[in-house]
């Protein structure tokens, strides 16, 4: 019997996300993994500032809202006080790699035993499409109308590559949600990252290349092509660390 149905941990509420937005797919995968591992009652998540700001309305586990970028610091506190709980953060690229750079790097470096779900949509979604640290060279955004340039804005930050060298990091994988096989790979990666935390191995992060059709000003089908043909060239998918 093959069934494809709503996971228990995903609430029935209709999300506020735009049509074709990757956040909805990642929410479902996260909920599927929490169900599979049977950890719903002991999981605490952090909702970000960014388009997923109201994610506590969608995911049926304990959640707190964190100030923009500060989730890894808040999650550090949660996990240290509740070492028996499973703690994850869910963060966009503006959140994790711009305002929260210090929290991200130092939390990873301390090897805090938490899991980070990092949504890389190469743009600031919620605020209307400004350049993110991950915006690609030449990519036009509202703050780089001529395209991001190496001299001026600098190149895109590759988070997995950047964190790989840190001793406390146990698992890093970059995946996408732009085709059914990519979706399956993301689900496996999220599961693996949670398993690392359950085994007490340290910091784990899954970077998901995700569609933002609205701020890219592309239709959902073209947004999927944008991930597959442009983003994956700049941000190769794969396992960056597994120890």
């Amino acid at each position: 019997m093959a069934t494809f149905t709503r996971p228990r941990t995903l609430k029935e509420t209709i999300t506020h996300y735009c049509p074709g937005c990757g956040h909805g797919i990642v929410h479902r995968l996260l909920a599927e993994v929490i169900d599979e591992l049977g950890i719903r009652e002991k999981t605490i998540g952090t909702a970000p500032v960014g388009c997923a700001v109201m994610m506590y309305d969608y995911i049926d586990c304990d959640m707190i809202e964190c100030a923009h970028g500060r989730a890894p610091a808040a999650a550090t506190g949660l996990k240290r006080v509740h070492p028996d709980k499973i703690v994850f953060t869910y963060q966009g690229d503006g959140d994790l790699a711009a305002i929260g750079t210090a929290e991200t790097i130092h939390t990873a470096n301390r090897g805090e035993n938490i899991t980070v779900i990092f949504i890389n949509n190469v743009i600031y979604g919620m605020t209307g499409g400004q350049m993110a640290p991950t915006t690609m060279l030449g990519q036009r955004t509202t703050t780089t109308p001529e395209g991001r340039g190496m001299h001026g804005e600098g190149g895109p930050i590759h988070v997995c590559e950047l964190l790989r060298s840190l001793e406390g990091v146990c698992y890093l994988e970059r995946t996408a949600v732009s085709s059914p096989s990519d979706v399956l790979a993301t689900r496996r990666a999220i599961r693996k990252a949670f398993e690392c935390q359950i085994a007490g191995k340290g910091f784990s992060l899954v970077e998901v290349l995700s569609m933002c059709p609205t701020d890219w000003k592309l239709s959902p089908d073209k947004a999927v092509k944008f991930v597959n043909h442009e983003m994956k060239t700049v941000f190769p998918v794969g396992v960056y660390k597994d120890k």
Partner: protein
Amino acid sequence: MSKNNVDIHFDAHRCKGCGLCVIFCPCGNIRMSDALNEQGHPYAELIDADRCTGCGLCFRMCPDTAIEIRSNKTAKR
């Protein structure tokens, strides 16, 4: 249940009309409605229930969990 023993349901109320299921259905078996739902979106519809293999690719791509599939193919075999 269809010929292939697949029970597939598209929830027009949840659908946002993104069309990702349409692009990824290997059977080309999904189309968008002409009518709009209460959110103002066209919604995905199955073209022919008997042609659906129950592969689940549409479910995997749907950002809004607007599709649910139950199939007892393996149970039958």
